[in-house]
């Protein structure tokens, strides 16, 4: 089986074949979901724990629905009310979890690398990264990839613009890694204060002018700009940002005529994206992204569960794992 990962910690360790495998499976789940068919029982008998150290509505519920559709027992750990607030370290949390023996662990954490650390300390459990600091958000990149593949019919040799707060975005990092692995042309558009240093070394073209950056692209991927970064810290004001980097009909006119518009949500209408574009069913695939999110997470957990069961099977037979 061409998917060999014990965890899904990021896009970085994935091989293009693994990405394709995952997307192919997600495609079938998307179709089943659309037809209202049951998801199956890939996770039957397994316990899925969602542990969010950072508030999240859409990602957490997407993982929850995905797990339930595949028959997992899903539990959400409310971290805000938990022992982390009492000073428990991440390692102790991991040890506590170990003792509870979850099968799938979905983690979001505000610090880069924290999910990797947790995965190192957990045994006999597949860990899915639901976002760690500014590092990676692999399922978001995968659902974006599936959305692009379905809309464009392919996931290679496309020109894709990623626009907005790239410096603070894990979504941008995972997308850059994935789209690069699949051999696309990536253009990054942001004010210099929101562009991470050395990013051109990743094989991206860097633009500070939106109209130039969008020239002829097939996909426009907008990123969320957090409001606290707009008060003069990174950009002078909301209105100046919208004027220069907000996606409106005029700027979108520079993209290819059939270009699609994406946004990982939640959107700030009138800040990074004009409401009419977000709602334009001919251009915007934002709702499809949410739909694909469930399918991609079903596929990811299905594949990881298969690997987990295989590893356990080998262990039961006394083979070395």
């Amino acid at each position: 089986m061409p998917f060999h990962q014990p965890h899904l910690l990021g896009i970085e360790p994935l091989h293009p074949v693994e990405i394709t495998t995952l997307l192919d499976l997600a495609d079938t789940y998307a179709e089943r979901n659309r037809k209202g068919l049951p998801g199956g029982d890939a996770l039957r008998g397994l316990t899925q724990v969602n542990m969010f150290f950072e508030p999240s509505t859409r990602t957490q519920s997407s993982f929850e629905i995905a797990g339930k559709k595949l028959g997992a027992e899903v539990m959400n750990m409310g971290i805000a009310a938990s022992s982390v607030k009492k000073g428990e370290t991440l390692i102790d949390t991991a040890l506590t979890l170990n003792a509870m023996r979850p099968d799938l662990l979905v983690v979001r954490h505000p610090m880069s690398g924290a999910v990797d650390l947790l995965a190192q300390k957990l045994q006999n459990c597949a860990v899915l990264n639901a976002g760690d600091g500014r590092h990676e958000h692999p399922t978001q990149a995968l659902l974006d990839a599936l959305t692009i593949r379905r809309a464009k019919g392919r996931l290679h040799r496309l020109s894709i613009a990623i626009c907005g707060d790239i410096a603070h975005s894990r979504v941008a990092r995972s997308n850059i890694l994935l789209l690069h692995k699949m051999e696309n042309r990536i253009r990054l558009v942001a004010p210099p204060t929101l562009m991470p240093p050395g990013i051109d070394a990743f094989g991206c073209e860097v633009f500070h002018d939106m109209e130039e950056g969008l020239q002829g692209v097939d996909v426009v991927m907008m990123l969320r700009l957090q409001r606290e970064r707009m008060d003069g810290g990174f950009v002078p004001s909301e209105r100046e940002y919208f004027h220069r980097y907000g996606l409106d009909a005029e700027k979108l006119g520079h993209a290819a005529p059939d270009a699609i518009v994406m946004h990982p949500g939640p959107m700030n209408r009138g800040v990074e994206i004009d409401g009419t574009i977000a709602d334009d069913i001919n251009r915007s695939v934002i709702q499809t992204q949410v739909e694909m999110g469930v399918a991609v997470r079903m596929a990811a957990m299905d594949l990881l569960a298969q690997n987990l069961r295989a590893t356990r099977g080998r262990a039961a037979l006394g083979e070395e794992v």
Partner: protein
Amino acid sequence: MTTLIHNVILIDPEAGTETPGALVLRDGAIAERLPAAPESLERFAEVVDGGGRHLAPGIVDWGVKVSEPGERHKESFRTAGLSAAAGGVTTIVTRPDTAPAIDTPEILEFVARRAAQDSPVRVLPMAALTKGREGREMTEIAFLRDAGAVAFTDGDRVVEDTRVFGRALTYAKGLGALVVSHVQDPGLSRGAVMTSGKFASLRGLPAVSPMAERLGLERDLALAEMTGARLHADQVTTAAALPALARAKAQGLDVTAGVSVHHLTLNDFDVGDYRTFFKLVPPLRQEEDREAAVEALASGLIDVLCSMHTPQDEESKRLPFEAAAPGAVGLETLLPAALRLVHGGRIGLPQLFRALSLNPSRRLGLPTGRLVVGAPADLVLFDLHAPFVLDRWKMRSKSKNTPFDGARLQGRVRGTWVAGHRVWEG
């Protein structure tokens, strides 16, 4: 007692030579320096055959954190001293960034007493420059100096208020006291745990431009020029900062600079998958900066090479990278790591020991660091070529946070003498 160490290659950093010879030690000092062992060995109470290995002045490691008072579970004077002896370090110059900070003569006396009781090597304390290292009011510099403080520093905390720092420098100048500053722009480096660049961007870690070091250095050099004070920059690690240092020295300012061995032998890529043992202050630099710093050490622009020994227990390191405590232990690995530069042909042994022993001694006004008759018999005997793989659990330091765990190193310390007494045999 008279000791003869013969059949060794003497590394003389002052003369810049490596010559076969022998040393006679008497009353804690070097009594004779001979081209070879004398024919009759009867007059010596002890004779050490060096087996053709290298003998150099003992290392003076400037900027060691011994976690007393406050965090003795991380390091004590006993374990730091043993670790130093095993690493060929004969004098440790300690940092005042303890809890509480060493900012009064009373605390300094406590430290000096603990050190004298427990450490097999010499311990010279530095004291805080401002009370509580808070950057607001200067400490009792004269009292602290009289109690034995060899230099004044707030450790890795920058005195942000230039007026406070300027006045402290002026006051220190009046006493001839040496001030050690951490050269870093506090605004740019706030919250940063890496050097900015493609690797920090890939890992998504908050990062600081290497230019922050130049800003900090330029500021401190300007204040040194303004006040005429004696200033030592603790760690200069970036290419951008070096021209400023060269200019200040050419101008005749009384300034020197150091660098840690980690910044000469590791770069930002070594952080790998968020390995917190590689989280240092300042953060590890990109390869070009490392190269430039190695060159600056070889040319003598950077004067002092040290370990910046910073013990941290497992708890403070087993955290997400951003939350983990910074620093690495280095007393035991300073010499073998520095010898990587010798084996790589980047620096000669006499030059290396200028930076390890002679220059720090001179700058701190110590009689050590030399191989001349009358100098203290603080010596290190080492096998330049002996290879080994470092096992952190075998180190003598209480804390095991070394970035060299599992690293292949070449160069083992076989003997360490402090004031003529052998404190290590390996």
